[in-house]
């Protein structure tokens, strides 16, 4: 026992003032049928640090974190947490030890109150054995104040914003006396101000000695908040080091295994006629009098903070949400678009923000997902010609380089990047010449991101497609778009050309006039 406890110390980071790794996972191995998910992974986190865990989708990050949380059992290896060797612990035991994992999809009971969610399973009792509601709400408030925010504890979680729900999750972790909090893609659902608040919370907890594992695709955040970075690739640790010794380029190279000299493809746009023109678009308090136009061959970016009305704009154009007022012209003639079906028949494709709930049929095959929006192409008198359909699907799969064993493979088993390529293939199959795409690379790893950018650029240049692209990632907007619309509170506050736009300028229009 002594001997095994000694082992990890040798490799411990000497730069830390005290010898105090809160977590050390050593030589972790994990296989799934047919796949070796983790090979000899060693991962340690020092007390009070924010440690970034990065890597492409499928690199093994979630598997490693599931082993940490007790959801999976490692085939091999050992985990020391807070000086103790833990072996085959259940999730409940790991929580007791002080490990909290906050997943992208929160595990909250949305109809219960904030306080109930924070103290779920541990509701304080009165001496009659009933729930002590008063004590519960006071405790919850105390817990939230410690994190620097305050929500009425009796509010049902369903009424909170995503950012607030995330805070409630962190409050729950704190109430469980978590010593290590794993944040899985915490920023995916947050706008910039909300992210700042999250960072402030992380920093104050850090000062109290809480450690974090921060999983993110956004490298900028890694540099903003983390002190160390571990890069996983194909189930192995590529490199683990202090933040100072990394650069964005070296991080990307470690993640994808090759240098990305130029991340965004070169752009030689040729603009054609106006293919989509929107004027005076209104919907409730979300969209206020929006007007713009899109030309053939153009990529028009839409950015703004969360809640500015970006996604709602796309949904309104394709008829997914009803309009109060507004005029939409497609190829120069006015059209009424009452449903997504109508939009597709007019050549307007829509790739929604949330692939899993809105974009894909996760239980169905790759092929099913690609052709579903325009089956008429393969149907004669409603009867499908499966051979023709299959060859078309295979052509999309090879053209867009979708990595899938077969076209009959369930799409839910593919990585985010490959799923997104299928969503794009679906729009191609629908023969759209206007593509509305919301967060084209959300949850997509770095390598596939680049491929998706190339696809979008190729569509505009070879097909004359016009693309209206909403994104929260400013580098992506700046790197791809010919023109940029900035939205704030349901209005367009600026229209910027490719050359004049900058992150600072966009942020200024996105936040105030």
């Amino acid at each position, binding site marked *: 026992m002594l001997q095994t406890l000694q082992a990890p110390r040798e490799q411990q980071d000497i730069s830390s003032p005290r010898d105090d790794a809160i977590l050390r996972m050593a030589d972790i191995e994990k296989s799934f049928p047919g796949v070796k998910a983790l090979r000899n992974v060693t991962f340690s986190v020092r007390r009070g640090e924010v440690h970034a865990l990065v890597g492409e989708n499928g690199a093994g990050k979630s598997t490693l974190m599931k082993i940490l949380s007790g959801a*999976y059992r490692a085939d091999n290896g050992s985990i020391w947490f807070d000086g103790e060797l833990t072996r085959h612990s259940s999730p409940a035991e790991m929580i007791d030890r002080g490990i909290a994992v906050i997943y992208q999809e929160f595990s909250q009971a949305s109809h219960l109150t904030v306080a109930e969610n924070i103290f779920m399973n541990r509701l304080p009792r009165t001496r009659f054995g009933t729930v002590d509601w008063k004590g519960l709400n006071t405790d919850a408030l105390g817990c939230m104040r410690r994190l620097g925010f305050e929500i009425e504890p009796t509010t049902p979680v369903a009424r909170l914003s995503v950012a607030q729900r995330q805070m409630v999750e962190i409050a729950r972790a704190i109430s469980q006396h978590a010593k290590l909090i794993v944040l899985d893609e915490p920023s995916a659902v947050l706008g910039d101000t909300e992210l700042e608040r999250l960072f402030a919370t992380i920093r104050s907890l850090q000062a109290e000695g809480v450690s974090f594992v921060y999983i993110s695709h956004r490298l900028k955040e890694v540099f903003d908040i983390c002190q160390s970075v571990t890069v996983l690739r194909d189930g192995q640790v590529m490199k683990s080091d202090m933040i100072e010794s990394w650069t964005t380029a070296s991080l990307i190279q470690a993640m994808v295994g090759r240098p990305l000299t130029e991340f965004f*493809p070169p752009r030689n746009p040729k603009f054609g006629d106006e293919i989509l023109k929107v004027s005076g678009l209104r919907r409730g308090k979300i969209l206020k009098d929006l007007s713009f136009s899109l030309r053939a061959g153009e990529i028009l970016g839409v950015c703004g903070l969360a809640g500015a009305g970006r996604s709602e704009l796309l949904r309104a154009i*394709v008829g*997914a949400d009803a309009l109060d007022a507004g005029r939409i012209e497609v190829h120069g003639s006015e059209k009424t678009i009452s*449903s*997504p*079906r109508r*939009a*597709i*028949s007019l050549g307007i494709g*829509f790739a*929604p923000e949330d692939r899993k*709930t*809105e*974009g*894909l*049929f*996760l*239980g*169905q*095959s790759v*092929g*099913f997902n690609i*052709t*579903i*929006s*325009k*089956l*008429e192409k*393969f*149907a004669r008198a*409603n*009867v*499908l010609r*499966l*051979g*023709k*359909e*299959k*060859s078309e*699907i*295979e*052509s999309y799969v*090879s*053209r*867009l*380089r979708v990595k899938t064993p077969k*076209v*009959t493979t*369930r799409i839910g088993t593919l990585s985010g990047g490959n799923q997104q390529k299928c969503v794009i293939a*679906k729009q191609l199959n*629908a023969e759209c010449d206007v593509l509305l795409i919301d967060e084209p690379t959300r949850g997509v790893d770095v390598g596939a991101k*680049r*491929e998706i950018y*190339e*696809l979008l650029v*190729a569509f505009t*240049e*070879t*097909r004359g497609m016009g693309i209206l692209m909403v994104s929260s990632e400013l580098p992506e907007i700046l790197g791809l778009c010919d023109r940029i619309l900035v939205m704030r509170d349901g209005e367009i506050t600026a229209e910027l050309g490719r050359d004049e736009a900058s992150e600072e300028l966009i942020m200024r229009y996105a936040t105030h006039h």
Partner: protein
Amino acid sequence: MTNITEQTAITERTADGKGRSLLSSIPKGAGLLWVLVALCVVAALLSPAFLNAANVTNVLRQVALFGIVSVGMTFVILTKGIDLSVGSILGVCAVVTALLLTGGMSVALTILVVLLLGAVLGAVNGLGITLGGVPPFIMTLGMMVMGRGLALTLAEGQPIGLGDRTMDFMWLGRGYVLNIPVPVWIFLIVSLVAIFVLRYTAHGRRIHAVGSNEEAAHLSGINVKLVTFSVYVISGVLASLTALIYVSRLTVGEPTAGTGIELEAIAITVIGGTSLFGGEGGIFGTIIGAAILAVLANIMNLVGVSPFTQQIVKGAIIVGAVLYEMLRRRKGSS
């Protein structure tokens, strides 16, 4: 990397003609088939009477009656819906069949009118669910109660005998073609058409899509309401078809005909591997599911298990089938 342009679009691969279906979960049927075979072996061992021609015919007829309703139920459950009203629609249609025939209407016209009536009752379900936004469970529960009331009202609470004027009509429930009962042929045809619709038509594909993810289906340009509406009409028509066979076989239109058949049909569909969560499953499984339940009931009858005990077994099987699916899903997701 920059050559992902239209040039690479040319694919050498041409259609190989018959691709595997793009719909998921076909192979589950094979496992079920073995369960059925095993059950038959057990049945033959337990009771020599099981393999009697008369008994086999009897079982097949049972499979056909429940099977036809279950095919309709499979369509509904594929869209993540449920149809509790099939038994009552069957009852109304049984009474109306008897009333029309005793009233002197021709057999052909009666069949047409009754099938239409089934479609209309199914359409009422469909409209309530799609336009009214009433959850399928509640809408069809209401229809179940209303339908039974309607059947009892029309029949004034009494079974209506057909008399002997309608010998042609008897053929439907009692006739044979090639020594196989007519209802079995009808079930076979219904199943083949259903399999064709679900696997080889755009409409069938859309039924799966609506059940898999309604929001994604809507955004993919599918008329979700129309698709949903259609499955309740299909279910209604198949219930009325079953009513015709039922009346023909018994030569009586009972207002209580079909009571409880909705539960059998749901059980058969679920045992057949169609997911209650929508989008997955199919007719082949339903056929096997119908056979499994019929053979099981037959074994219990032959061995002399009381009908009360049989209910306990059936209930346990339904829960067991769903439990099996949940376990399978859990395994699949981790």
